Structures are given as C-alpha cells and as structure tokens.
C-alpha cells in the first residue's frame, strides 16, 4: 500500500501544517511509514504553497511525487498546476469556494474556508480539510488524525480545532452518503 498525497494552497492557509498532521498521524498513530517534502519550487516565492506526503506500509525510497493518488487544492493556482497530470484514479478534493474545476474530472468539494469563518477562525480551514480528507479517503484513521490535531495546535485551541476536524469529517460522511443515495437512485424522501 502506498498513498501519495499533494496538498496545495496559498501561503498562510496552513497547507504545510496540514501535510505534517497527515504524515505524523500515519506514522505515529497508524504505525505506517510516511515522508514529507515541502515545496521548494519557484511557487514558494509567489504565495503558492504545496506539500507532498507519502504514506506507505513499507519503506519509502523516493519522497517526491510525480502523479498523486490524492490531490487537495485550497487555491486555484494549485489546481491549475496539477490538473493536467491527474489520472482517472486520482482523488481530487477542493475548497469549493476557492477552486473552479475546469477539466472533466470527478472531485469532492467542501466549503472549508466558509465553514472555518462560520466557526469564527478562518485559519482552521486546513483542519477542516484534514477531517474531510480523512473521511473521504481513509488515508489516516480517525483516531490518530484527531490525536495528532490535538497535539499540533496551541493547547488553548484544541477544543475548537477538534470541532473543526469533526465538521470536515461529518461533511465527508454526508458527501459519501449522498453519493451512495445517488447511486441507488433515491435522492429524495421515499
């Protein structure tokens, strides 16, 4: 098993931190191997920001990612950069208010920034996105993700960050449920 995850966004959205939490949750919580590479390309001068996380159940020999299994986009620029290399198997996840998907590709959308604003702290959008990522892809387990979130944020904000995580997780469950309902052909109240 190997999962290659790229998370992209603007500097300041907490993209790197999101990557760190996912990687640490996999390594420390789920006892897997993980590696993380911060983007050092020219985009880090232009406000764009990305992180590459690999999770595997064996040793990771090469930490760079050419074709991701999971691509999380919290900004339009991040999406535009990677959209051409997406394969049919890549799970694409976006902040629906910040990214417009232009190619014919299935994707999972969440208004993570809006949710964070509703909860009163815009900078929690990344935590909401981690909840969403964990819920949709199961790349990391629920318990270890929550555990790592609470160890990574300032102690005063643990409670609200866990709430933010749950918001994303529950939205993921609702999204998956909605897809199941659509597949069964029943979207209304029977």
């Amino acid at each position: 098993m190997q999962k290659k995850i790229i998370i992209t966004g603007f500097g300041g959205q907490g993209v790197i931190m999101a990557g760190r939490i996912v990687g640490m949750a996999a390594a420390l919580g789920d006892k897997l191997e993980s590696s993380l590479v911060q983007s050092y390309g020219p985009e880090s001068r232009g406000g764009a920001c990305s992180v590459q996380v690999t999770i595997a159940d064996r040793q990771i020999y090469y930490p760079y990612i050419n074709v991701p299994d999971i691509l999380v986009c919290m900004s339009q620029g991040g999406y535009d950069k990677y959209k051409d290399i997406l394969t049919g198997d890549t799970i694409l996840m976006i902040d629906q208010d910040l990214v417009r998907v232009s190619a014919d590709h299935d994707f999972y959308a969440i208004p993570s920034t809006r949710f964070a604003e509703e909860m009163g702290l815009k900078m929690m959008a990344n935590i909401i996105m981690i909840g969403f990522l964990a819920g949709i892809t199961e790349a990391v387990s629920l318990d270890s993700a929550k555990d790592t979130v609470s160890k990574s944020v300032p102690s005063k904000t643990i409670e609200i960050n866990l709430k933010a995580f749950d918001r994303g997780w529950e939205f993921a469950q609702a999204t998956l449920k909605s897809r199941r309902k659509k597949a069964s052909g029943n979207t209304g109240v029977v």
Partner: protein
Amino acid sequence: MSDYKIILFCCNWGPHAAFLNLQDRREEIPNEIKMVRIPCSGRITKALLFKAFEMGADGVILLGCESGSCRYGSGTATAMKNTTETREILALLGLGERRLRLENFLPHQSDELLAFLKGFVAGIKEIGKSPIFATGSLWEDRKEPETPEEIIAAHDVYSCQDCGKCTSACPLALAGKPFSPRAVANDIIAGRADTKEVIASVNACLTCGVCYERCPSAVNFPEFIKDMRAYYRRRNMTTEPAHGGFFQSMMRAMTSEGLKPDRWKNLPENIKINKNSKILFFGGCAPYFDVFFRVYLKINTSSILEDSIKLLNFFDIEPNVLEKERCCGHDLLWSGDRDNFIKLARLNLKAIEESGAEEVITACPECYHTLLNEYKHYGIELPVKITHIHEFLDKEVEKGAVGFKPLETRVSFQDSCRQSRFNNLADLPRKLIEKFAQGNIDESSARSLTNCCGNSAWTGCDSFSKAMQVQRLKQARNSGSGILITACPKCQIHLRCAMEDALRGDELKMEMMDLTTAIAKTIYWE
C-alpha cells in the same frame, strides 16, 4: 356472578319498548348488563361512549331506532358516525372494536334484542375483561403545593407588580375576552380562588406563555395555572374540558397497564423501523386525533409522524417505536389531573427503559416538553436524551451535502407554544424554513413569535378562541402567503376548525402543512 360490566345505552323509543317487554316477560337478561335509559342514541357522543370504558366497562352497547324511524330525524345517522369513530379509536388503543356495538331495534323485536344481548355478552367473555381499571387517585409521595396559598408561594406570584404587561399582551384579552392574568393573580392572592369567575378564568387560560415572556418579575403564570388546575381538580371543581373530555378520558384509560394500544398499525410499509435501534421515535396522539376529527376537518396529522420517520430513514436512521406507545400525559397534566399524569409517566418510563433506547426523538412539541421537562419536574428521570425532530434535522442538514427545492410560494409560520416559548426553540424552525422558503417568508412570522392557535390541553374553547384563530388566519392570508407552516398537530386542528366556518365560506381557507412534511417534500441529496 361474573364481574363483567357491560353498559347498555338504550334509546327511550324503539329499543326501550322492546327492553321493557323483556322485563315484563321476566326474561333472563344477562346480569352483566347495566341499562342506562337515554333520550336518543344520537345524543351519546364519542366522549360519553368512551367514558364508560375509562370507568372500567368491558363492553358498551348503544341501542337506537331503525334508520328512518328515529323520532328526531338524524339520531340514527349521528349514532352510526359516533360509534364507527369510537370503534376505530378503540382499535388503535388496543381495546378492540368488538367491545362497542351499535344496534337498532323496533318495539316488537324483543326476541331479537334478547338474542343480541346474550350474544354480545358471550362475545365479550370470549375477549376477556377490559385491561382498563377504573381510574382512581394517587396520594403517595406528594411534594407539590396543594392550597392556593402554597401555590402562590411556590411560583412567587406575590412579586407581581400589578403592571399589567401580561394582560396587554395576552391573546385572550386581545381577542376581547374579559380575562386578565393580573386580575386572576390578584384574585387568588386575595383568597377568591374558589369563586366561579376565578375558576372559569383559570380554566380559560391558554397557557401559551406570552405573559411569562413579558412579566418583569418573571412570574411563571402558566406553571401557576397548571398547579391551580390540579387544585381545582382534586376538589372536584374543574370545568368540563372541550370535546366532552374525550381525550382526557382516553388518556386516563391509558394509565391501565394491561391496555396494549395498537396505534402504529396504519404505518405505511415503506417506512423502516428497527426493533434493535438505540434511537426511539415517540409519535404522540396524532392517529387518535385523525379519527376523532375526521368528519369535520379531514385532517391528517399522522402524516407528521410518517414524514418524521421517513426523514430519519432519509438520513439512514431506522428508529424503534414503542409498540404499545401511550400518551405522554401532557393534556392530563395541563387540565389538572396530575395523579393520572404521573401514572402515565411511570408507564412510559418503564416502556422506554425496556426498549433499550439511548435517545428519544419526537415531532410533537408537547411530547418534547413533557418528556424533557415535566417528567423531571415530577421526579421521573428518563434515562435517555430527548431530541426534537427539528434539532435532529438541523444537525444533519448542517453536516452538508443536502439541498432543498424552493417551495415556490410565500410561507407563514405558526409557532407552537411548547416549542417556541416554553423551550426557547423559536429560531430553529425558522432556520429550517429558510432552507426551502429562501427568503420568501411572511415578515411578521419571520420577525417575532406568532399568536396562539387558540387552545391548549383541550380546555376552554370558546368564541374568543375562534376570534383569535380567525385573526391569525386573516393575518397569514393578508401577508400574501400561500401556505401556513405549523409545528404542532393541535395548531393544525384548531386552525383547520376555524377554516371550516360555513358562514365565512372560503374566506379563511389556506393550505397548512407541518414543517416536517414540508422538509420531507423538499429535501434531497445534492
């Protein structure tokens, strides 16, 4: 001698002549039958028919005249309707339709009458004794205030500043009734609790809670009224409730443990119920209401329960229901019968405990308030979380991935007193309405709590209740709304009743829909 009790209501004319003939001939009329002579079978209302069962009758017979030979014209037809509907309610209650029969006899048909009576008694013995015991009183562990003085002290009515804000906001007073919460408080403080006027006022109060909302001293007037009614009831000074007291009778009958109501029997098959679920759906009395009010109002409040369970199914929850669900006891408590309320509450506690549920969801604001607050108040601790269906829906909708089709018409909302005022949940239904109304909501109901629907706990319905209902419906219609969204089955019944006014024709008619039904109609997975 057997201890079966069968009440025979016997019309003065045709059947009584036949009955007399049997007595003259010294025929052996079964001992179990107690005959009550009545002027006409049409005069025995559903409430009177049921009262006999409440008092422990094992069977009831109503005898009238053959169709066409009724001395008063419409007696036979009325008796047919009353009997049919009461039989349906008996079936829902699990008593069985066979315990009530209507038969018609002409004076010369004594032999047929005797055969019928013997057959009926044999039939009742086949079914067995009624599980209902005559309802009595319950005097154990009483901690409640009993005298007017104690009741005044318990609710600190002395702190009334005589400002009159209650009266100026009271919907009854605004409808023109000579009624004033302040005056009631003053009268009782002054020791006039037992006067006819005060008793009538205490009975007339809607207990809607507007006065409490306005009171600068926070005197909880509805609670005060509740205890005063219990005081009157214990001293046998209560006024007759509305609808002949049918519903109170029915609820008292439900305090008998042996009764096994079958009130879910008409649940549609596509609704998914799971006996092992940790979530219990508590329905409430809607199925009984629908039978009782069918002829005049054509209401369908059972659909509220069905749509609620469908919505739970929509969110992948298959709830359990109490097979023998009883009334929560709200109306007994609020019409003063605390003893039987507590009996019912204990039975409900037992049933809920046995179901293994961890959470009870209900769509009825009265059940919600009663299970959540009143049970605790009277020392009955339910080991479950009580959730209003609106709370559940709000939580699930917030999780995302569901959308709403707009309703395409302006919407008005009718607040339920038990939900919006007693439990401060007025914002919740408005938030949910906004999903499908999308801004197109009548301003007055969007902004503030709407007026009472005219009654509560089946007490004190009069022309002023009607005036309030007319006013409320006019307000809703004048706002340009095409639909009135309600949150309580009783609001629907009361407002529908006002719409039925023949003299006003279609002037007050408008579509009404419960909020859960509106959501069930519009929600979909995105």
